[in-house]
């Protein structure tokens, strides 16, 4: 499961960045699944996009992007002549997380309808939360975009099967 989900996640993130921003990602230097124990990108703030999903699996996807990179990507994406505002970058990161999640599950489990929650994004500083509830599994992947580190975290558990039909 982890391996297939990891492959689908890497494919989805790469596809979304390439199509939206014409940015080609490289694997990050942290192996998948390695715990992070400190701030990423030095002390720079990051934008954290997240949304819940529910299908055969249910959980949360989190996407962390260096703050200045997110602002730059939003500027390019919107075709602006002046730097994108923080609000515009937040909105872009929400949509980015949404697209990654939707693409991930159409690659991983294309026969199943996954309900996606409302995406959220916020500016964060410091180490990521190490949330792991009960029986939940966690997958972490790092990527490099224009030399900057982007982190994807998936936390999930098998959804309880509902009535057929």
């Amino acid at each position, binding site marked *: 499961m982890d391996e297939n989900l990891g492959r689908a996640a890497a494919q989805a993130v790469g596809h979304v960045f390439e199509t*939206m921003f014409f940015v080609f990602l490289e694997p990050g230097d942290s192996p998948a699944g390695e715990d992070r124990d400190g701030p990423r990108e030095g002390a720079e703030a990051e934008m954290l996009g997240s949304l819940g999903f529910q299908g055969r699996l249910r959980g949360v996807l989190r996407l962390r992007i260096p703050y200045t990179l997110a602002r730059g990507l939003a500027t390019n994406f919107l075709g602006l002549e002046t730097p994108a505002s923080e609000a*515009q970058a937040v*909105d*872009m990161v929400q949509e980015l997380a*949404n*697209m990654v999640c939707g*693409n991930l599950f159409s690659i991983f489990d294309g*026969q199943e*309808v996954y309900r996606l929650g*409302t995406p959220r994004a916020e500016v964060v500083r410091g180490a990521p939360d190490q949330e792991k509830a009960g029986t939940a599994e966690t997958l972490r992947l790092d990527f490099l975009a224009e030399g900057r580190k982007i982190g994807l975290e998936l936390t999930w558990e098998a959804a309880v099967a509902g009535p057929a039909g």
Partner: protein
Amino acid sequence: MAYNVLIVDDSHTMRTVIKKTVAISGFEIGECWEAGDGLEALNLVKDQWVDVVLTDVNMPRMNGLELVKALKSDEATRHIPIVLITTEGSEARMREAYALGIAGYIQKPFYPEAIRDALNRIMEAFHG
């Protein structure tokens, strides 16, 4: 002939990008309206002549599939072609959407050509 387009998405960023994409696609646009959810879109359709609706699925208050149902169940609006532009790409979701009467389905992220080609194909089919 220029067509009036309604773009429905809760993300202001996506509305802007879709609007720009439609504008540069070579597709002739008359008016281009925006709505942040299905309910806002329904109210707008009551007051304006809309030739084609491009809508997201996952939105607050009224989602894209509910909007499709509402438009297709009203005699005055059932002729309007609707294209879903959504992150969701499961086959089951696509089948459900086509069964409701959508004219096209584009998965985000998209290349501009996908929107141009879908609009040209749909408007030719609907308006000759």
